Every structure is written in C-alpha cells, then in structure tokens.
C-alpha cells in the first residue's frame, strides 16, 4: 500500500515535471518548426530561381507592376519636409554633399593644369542620377568662382543629330553670355571664340543627347568634338555623359582621345550610401530603426546578438549592403529604394526593413526586341517614337506600339521629350544586358 502511494506520488511528480517542461519548451518548439518551414520555403524558392525554374514571367511582371504602383503611393505618403530632404534633383550646395570628394579633387587638379596653359578637357561619366550635376554645382561654388561660367544642357531639347540644329541650339544658349553674337556658321563662332581676350569655363551636360544611333546620327557629335578641340585654349570644357553612351562613342568614334581626363562616377562603397542617406535623415530629426523579417529573426547569427544596439547595427549593415548592390553607384536609385521600402513612419521615427523585397528576374525573359530597345535607352537616355523608329529601321507606328507596351508594363516612363527607363529598373537592366553580351 505504502509502495503504491509512493509510486503514485512519484508518477504525479514526474507528470508535473514533464507537463512543465512541455509547457516551457512548446513555444520554442513551435518557433523552431515555423522557422524551419519558413526557411525551407525560402530555400525552395531560391532553388527554383537558381535552376531557372522560377515562377512564370507573367507572375513576376505582375509583382513588379505592383511594386511600381505601390511605390508612388508609398512615397507620396511621406511628409513633405522629409521628401524635400530626399529630393531627387541635383544638390544646389554642399549641405548634404558626401562621398565624392576624390572627384572634386580631380577637378581641382584639372583647373590648375588649365591655368598653366595645358589641354584639360574633362569628362564626367556616370549613369543618370549618379551625381554628375551635383558635382558640377559644387565645383562651380568651390573652384570656379573667379571665372565666368557658361552652362549648356543638351537635355533642354530633343535629341540633336544635325549640325545646323546644333549650331542653332548653341547660338541660343550663348545669346546672353557676353560671347560673340550674330555668327552665321559654327566655324565663324569658333573663330570668334579663339580671338576672345578672356578665358571661360563651359559646363556641357548630357553629351549623349547630340547623337542618334543611325549612320547619319554622328554628324552633330563629331562637329561638337571638333569645336571643343579647336577652342580648348580659351575654354575649360567640363562635359558630362552617361556611361553606356560614352563606352559606345569610345568604340566607334575613339572619343577618349578628345579628353584629357575621364572622371568615372560609376562606383561607390557601401559607406558612401550610408553617409549620404544618414546625413539627410539626421536633418529630419527622426530616429532610424530597422525591423528584421522572420528569416533573419530565426537565423542563428541574429539570435546570438544580445543587445538591441548590436542587432540594430547588424540590420543596418544588411540594409545598406543590399542597397549598395541594388544601386551600384547610382545615388538616385538608392534614394528611391530607401523611400519605397520604409515600413512605418511617424513624427519621431522611420522604420526600415533589413532587406528590400525586389525581384526583377523577369527581365531575363523579355523578348529580344525589348532588350535591344532597352540598350538604345541606356545609350540615349531619352528617346521618342520617331527617333526609335529611325534607330530600328521601322515605321513610327511600330515603335509607338512597342514603347507604349513597355511603358504600360512599367519598364519605361514618359517624360517631356519622350520615354526613359524607369529608375527602379536601371541597374537590373544593365545586369541583364551584360549577360546578353550587348553591353560590356
């Protein structure tokens, strides 16, 4: 009887212990199982992508279209003061200028060279939105304040490829700059500039706008290069151009020989993005927080981090690493992704995810004619349907159909003079065209 009572007590005690342990470990077990399922699903999806067995193009396109549509709403929901800080237009002063000091120093060296009477035509080369105009604005304030500066932006007009049109445009731009007026030809303009007593600095932006990829589309560009070569003693030329146009000109026209220095704005370390973005964010007076997704929360590395500060640093590094991979030197693209990806916003803080959910893999499956159109847009930056038709030897109606189709899907966006590549897709398109052997 005594033995039976003792056994019962022991059994009850064991039962309690076991049920206590189960209650204690059940939530952990549940987390472990749900984490394992989540990881397996992620890995399965990754495996499908790796083996080319990813979801159908239509699904991916749909998800991208949603991303673009949501982007507008998402960004517009931010308060005006915050959007002003992250304005996409070039910076007018050095308040938020960062990560491009080396390039500014190169411009200083070129100026000194020019002051010593040497050939110094300089090209600033980079993608649209990488900060070329900002750099020129800074250079104007810090380096060229003693000189009279003339600014010519070829983006102010449609693509020019005829010498007469180029001359008319230059005449119009030089009209109120104190330079010789009333010239009848570009040769006359050159001769009068060479005779000028004082030296000047010319900022020429978007050189890619004065060519069209047709057999007769190089005349204006060639004439302009001659103009630059002949007047370099009187004018310090600073020319900006997009990188893929410049590479094309280098192969077809040997344009590298017309400039003394090429300043490439195509790369930026991760710290550069961090500096640029955090400088602007600090000015807003809000706290910045990063929120992990379940995959990160379940990872061993994250769970090992003990303090909240360590975790936030880890998440911040993850975010900026991915942002730098998505932007690849393009500051505009980085800012757009930042504004698109925030999770929560209040007057006191901004919450960002640790990873940006963006998958443009459907671009690999686009038809060849769309890939060829995209390279034309990379080289020309902006095109209308008439120019597209001239490049691809087809009628305007065909070009209009194709461009509208691509704009409807969100690959292109309409601007004042035509169409251009959507900034979210700029870098992914470059990657796809490189793998297609179209650009190098």
């Amino acid at each position, binding site marked *: 009887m005594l033995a039976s009572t003792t056994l019962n007590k022991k059994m009850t005690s064991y039962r309690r212990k076991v049920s206590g342990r189960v209650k204690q470990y059940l939530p952990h077990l549940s987390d472990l199982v749900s984490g394992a399922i989540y990881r397996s699903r992620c890995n399965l999806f990754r495996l499908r992508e790796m083996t080319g067995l990813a979801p159908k193009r239509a699904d991916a396109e749909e998800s991208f279209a949603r991303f673009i549509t949501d982007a507008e709403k998402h960004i517009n929901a931010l308060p005006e003061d915050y959007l002003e800080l992250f304005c996409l237009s070039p910076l007018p002063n050095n308040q938020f200028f960062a990560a491009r000091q080396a390039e500014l120093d190169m411009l200083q060296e070129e100026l000194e060279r020019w002051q010593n009477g040497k050939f110094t035509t300089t090209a600033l080369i980079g993608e649209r939105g990488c900060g070329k105009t900002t750099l020129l604005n800074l250079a104007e304030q810090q380096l060229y304040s003693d000189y009279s500066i003339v600014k010519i932006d070829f983006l102010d007009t449609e693509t020019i490829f005829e010498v007469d049109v180029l001359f008319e445009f230059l005449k119009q731009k030089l009209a109120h700059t104190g330079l010789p007026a009333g010239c009848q030809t570009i040769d006359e303009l050159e001769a009068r500039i060479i005779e000028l007593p004082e030296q000047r600095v010319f900022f020429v932006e978007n050189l890619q706008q004065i060519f069209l990829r047709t057999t007769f589309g190089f005349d204006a560009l060639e004439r302009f290069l001659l103009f630059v070569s002949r007047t370099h003693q009187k004018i310090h030329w600073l020319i900006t151009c997009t990188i893929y146009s410049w590479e094309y000109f280098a192969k077809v026209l040997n344009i590298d020989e017309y400039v003394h220095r090429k300043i490439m704005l195509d790369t930026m370390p991760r710290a550069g993005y961090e500096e640029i973005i955090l400088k602007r964010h600090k000015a807003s007076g809000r706290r910045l927080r990063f929120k992990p997704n379940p995959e990160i929360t379940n990872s061993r590395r994250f769970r090992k981090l003990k303090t909240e500060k360590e975790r936030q640093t880890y998440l911040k590094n993850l975010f900026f690493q991915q942002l730098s991979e998505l932007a690849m030197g393009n500051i505009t693209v980085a800012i757009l992704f930042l504004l698109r990806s925030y999770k929560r916003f209040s007057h006191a803080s901004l919450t960002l995810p640790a990873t940006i959910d963006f998958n443009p893999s459907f671009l690999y499956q686009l038809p060849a004619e769309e890939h060829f159109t995209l390279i034309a847009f990379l080289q020309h930056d902006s095109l209308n349907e008439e120019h597209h038709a001239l490049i691809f030897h087809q009628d305007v109606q065909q070009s209009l159909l194709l461009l509208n189709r691509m704009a409807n899907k969100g690959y292109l966006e309409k601007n004042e003079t035509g169409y251009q590549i959507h900034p979210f897709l700029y870098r992914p398109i470059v990657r796809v065209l490189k*793998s297609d*052997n179209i650009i190098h």
Partner: protein
Amino acid sequence: MSKFKNYVTGFVFLVCVGVIGWQLLMGGGLVAQAELPAEADVAAEPAPAANTSPAQQESAPDGEETAEPSLQKTWKITFGGIVWTIVFFLAALFIIRQLTHTLERMAEFSTQLRLTIKRLIPMIHILGWAAAAYIIATNAFALPIQTLIAISASAGIALGFASQDILKNIFGGIMIVLDRPFQVGDKVEIGSHYGEVLQIGLRSVRIVTPDDNLVSIPNSEVMGQSVSNANAGESNAQVVSEFYLPPDIELIQAKKIAYRAAAVSRYVFLNKPITVIVKNEVHQGRSLLKMRLKAYVLDIRYEALFASEMTETVIREFMRAGLINTEQLAQLNPAS
C-alpha cells in the same frame, strides 16, 4: 556574375542531393535486400550482413571456399535483378533528362554562359549512362569486375564484327567530345551543311541550318572530313557582307557609310574591330570594286539577321548619299 553563381550553386546542390539520395538508397540496403532471397538459397553459408552487396561479399577475406559459391550465385538472373535494372534504367533516364533540361533552360538565360553550359551536356550524357551501366552491372546483377570485363570483351568482339559502322560512330562521338573540334552551340560547316550544333550524340552530330532544317551527320563522317568552326566556343563570330561597287564611286564616303552601317546595328559586337576592305576584280572584261565589310555579331544566333541588316543599311545609305543609283545597282552583278 551573381546569377551565374546562383546557377552553379543550384547545380552543385542538385548533384549533392542526387549523391546523398543514392548513398541513402545504397546504404539503406534496398539493393542488398533485393538480393537477399538469392542469398537465402545458400544453405551452408553464414548469412551476410544486410547492407553488404553481393559484390562486396565476394571480396570478403573468406578465402576461395566462400568466393566460389558467391560467384556462381551472381550468374543467376533473378527477378529482383531485372526489376532493379528497370528501376535504375528509368532513374538514370529521368535524372539525365531532367539535368539536360535544367541545363538547357539555364543556358538560355545568358548569352555569355550559353555555350559554356551547353558543352557540359554531351559529357553528362556519356558519364551518366556509363555510371548507370556500371551500377546496374555491379549492383543489380552483382557481376564481379572480372566477369564484367570478360563479358564486355566477348560481347565487344561479337558486336564489333556485327556492327562496325555503329562502333565507328560511337568512337567518333567519343573522339569529338574529347578532341573538341566544335561544341554544342557552335556554328560549323561540315561538308555541304552549315548550321548551329544542337547535339553531339553517340551516333551522330545534329545541326540546325539557317533554314531551320535538322541535319544528322554520322560521327564517322564528321571525323573523316574537315570541319569549319565559325565561332570556336565564343558567342560572337565574324560576319562578312560583300558589295560590288562601280570603280568611280566616292570611296572615302562609301567606306565611312559601310563602317557606320555595321557600328549602328543592334547585333554588332563592338569589342572586336569592324573592318572595310576594298579589292579590284575583273568580271567579263569589266573592272568592279568588291567591298568586304567585316564585323562581329554579339550572338551567333543573329548571324543571318546581322548580315541582312548590314546589307540593307549599306545599300539604302549609298543610295541616299547619291553614291549609287538603281540602274548602277542592276548593272553591278558580276555575272551579267
């Protein structure tokens, strides 16, 4: 590049899964269990370990007494052996086909990597089937290696006499894979046939002509004649367009237009040079200038389109610039 890394990781992962699966299958004793009924017939022998295949048992250090009856056992064609042969055969067929299909799909995502990935396919076929044959012979039928060699040799002699042409083709196929005068994806000219190599098989090479005809050329024939390879493993290849011009044409402008016609084409590969060469030729007592415009196409698949676009652009621009007119063009045929 990161996509390529993903592909490689995916491929390695698939191979690992395959190997682990195979190890589990073999280590789990599935094959050995299938052989167990045959083992049970040997009443005098001690029972073998469940996860040891008959081939392994034979090599156990029991001396000649145990080796001899085991050898006799292996000559029996058992029901289990036949079933496992069919299973292995179907599994090999499935794995090789899936692997080929996956590689072909992966290859189509990138022009730069297409040829690199596609040239793995014939190698995978040969190695895959050789491995499958070995596994069937040694595990399903538990043939000892000496017996396997003896059977292969006698079967080889018999088959060799019976099917000389087939063997010639098979050895030709192996030589093509090893010697690599061309690979899958290359543009080649074999005899009178020109086209893209679609498959290098054990019997024949299959090429697709520009007119989309599939031509099978026996490997022995391929080995017996000269083969011209247009791109030699690269995705780009030279394309030449020829034009006959009147001798009094404005050559400087004509050469500039021809160069530009190639440079502005959507298909041009600009990492290699564009050249314009002019020669004088006499046809039926008339002197004509022959202009050869040489440029590289970015993907061998656009070869015909690139040649067509260059010709179209050059003639249109010559006429627009007033270098030639329709009448001159009609008279420029060297045969007329």
